[in-house]
């Protein structure tokens, strides 16, 4: 009986792995198609009957993708915008998360619910009027707008930090307070280092959001300062304005690479951290 059970379990395990492998294969088809397209020659894009695989890989596309649109300029723009947003956003969320987890006041729960309910506001309901206001008062095309914008944090990240802070016992702060540390010293010296995992998770999210955001840069920034998200969708065209999908895909590879690297370097802590602390409750 025991033998039978274990054989059955083993069979189930093998089936599971096979299904998972099939899923991975399906999930990776779009990625494969991206690489294959990025190696096609110009002619292979438009010929009939269509070519699925290029005869020989055109690695030149990767060079063209870079030189054609001054990639470095827009890459740098994206990096600046993302950092301008990520740093204050993580700090602001961490602050608010600490406030919501630590200080028992009557109205705390109401304010917390109010904070979470701002997630329901469609982002254009705030961004479109904001754009109209900002362009009126001459603040358009200023990158520091992202810093001010980031300070408020993000509801999901505030929630995440609150969850993390809630797992730390109050005794940590009590002893520091007895030794005469003020609230900021307690926060920066004791609490902040204890939520490092949450900081990493929040930073990855905030960076990913600002790196992929299309609407804010297209509204608030003009031609030279625009980020990759905006530049890529209309940058790769020939003289007749035909979109060059092969070079575009090479550009997309560059665009995705920083996030992929950050993600794979930190994925262990990122996923484990999300699973253990962030999502419960």
């Amino acid at each position, binding site marked *: 009986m025991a033998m039978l059970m274990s054989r059955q379990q083993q069979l189930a395990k093998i089936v599971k792995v096979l299904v998972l492998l099939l899923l991975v294969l399906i999930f990776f088809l779009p990625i494969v198609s991206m690489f294959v397209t990025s190696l096609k020659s110009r002619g292979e894009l438009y010929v009939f009957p269509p070519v699925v695989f290029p005869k020989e890989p055109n690695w030149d596309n990767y060079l063209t993708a870079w030189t054609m649109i001054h990639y470095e300029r827009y890459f740098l723009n994206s990096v600046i915008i993302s950092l301008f947003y990520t740093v204050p956003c993580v700090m602001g969320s961490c602050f608010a998360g600490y406030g919501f987890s630590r200080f028992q006041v009557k109205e705390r729960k109401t304010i917390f619910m109010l904070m979470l309910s701002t997630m329901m506001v469609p982002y254009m*309901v705030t961004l479109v009027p904001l754009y109209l206001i900002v362009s009126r008062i001459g603040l358009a095309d200023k990158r520091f707008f992202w810093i001010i914008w980031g300070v408020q944090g993000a509801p999901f990240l505030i929630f995440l930090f609150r969850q993390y802070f809630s797992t730390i016992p109050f005794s940590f702060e009590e002893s520091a307070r007895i030794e005469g540390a003020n609230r900021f010293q307690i926060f920066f010296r004791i609490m902040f280092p204890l939520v490092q995992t949450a900081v990493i998770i929040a930073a990855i999210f905030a960076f990913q959001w600002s790196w992929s955001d299309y609407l804010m840069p297209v509204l608030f920034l003009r031609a030279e300062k625009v980020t990759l998200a905006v530049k890529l969708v209309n940058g790769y065209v020939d003289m007749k304005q035909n979109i060059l999908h092969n070079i575009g895909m090479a550009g997309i590879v560059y665009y995705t690479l920083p996030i992929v690297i950050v993600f794979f370097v930190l994925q262990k802590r990122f996923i484990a951290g999300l699973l253990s602390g962030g999502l419960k409750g």
Partner: protein
Amino acid sequence: MAGSEIKRMDTISRQRRISFYIFISPWIFGFLLFQIMPIAWGFSISLTNRMAFTVMQKFIGLDNYRNLLADPEIRYSLLTTFIYTVSSTTLAVVTGLIIALLLEKEVPGRGVFRTVLYFPYMIPLIAVGWIFKIFLDRDTGFFNIFLSKLGFISSNIAWLSDFPRGSVVSLSIWMSGWSMIIFLGGLSTIPNELYEVAKIDGAGYLRRLRAITLPLLSPFAFFQFVTSSIYSMQKFIEPYILNPRQQRGGQVTAMIPPRETFFTMARGYDIVFLKNRFAQGLALLWILFAIILIITVIFIRLGGFVVYTEVGEKR
């Protein structure tokens, strides 16, 4: 003696309140400046006839709202947004659930599968859109090649122009890694003893799934449905990128996507920035806001019936 004690407690609670507001002040600042102010101002504009270059701005009450709701195209966009939201949310949640269940117990390479299947969620939307535009292409797209190699289809299908809504939904399925992570988090909260006891009682896998796993995962599924439908109702840029009509450069938003994927938010953007009718566009965005609010409230009300709670537990 008692008096000084009370005084001390007062100081402590005042100190606590001060600390609370100091720490949440960055959020309050953003809330007032970037939420309340634009929301209120935007709403007041939506009650006028403002255009990009109006000299004579006047108050017209709810006329914009009335006109929008009377317009069959706008009504259709609300309907198609709703259909999209229901289908993409359901499919993404179910896909995430299935993957999470496959990864539940000791599976070889669990960590690798988890990372790899989560990965598409990290790819920027613009990239995902463009990757899928090529992936779903009728002639050279890998999806058609894959399907025809397996014998599912005999002739190539033009997914982007014949099934625009399905194409946009496919992005959400591809990015269901987020849903998977939430369910994995949920699964880790279920005590193993429950399964042990059920096994001793002779419950098979399906029985355990129905009696233990799914009820205990229901709060997580509920959370997903709420957040992801709020998010799906605001779909904006993907249909533009997957737009089969867009063959030339220039702003992607200059060429409107097929009717089925011209969602409400994109229509609002189009009215504000391409037709320059600020007030009307803002009114449409407000209609969307109202619908999201209503749906969320319904969800939360319904949630009480759908979600499993411990007997006697107060909601």
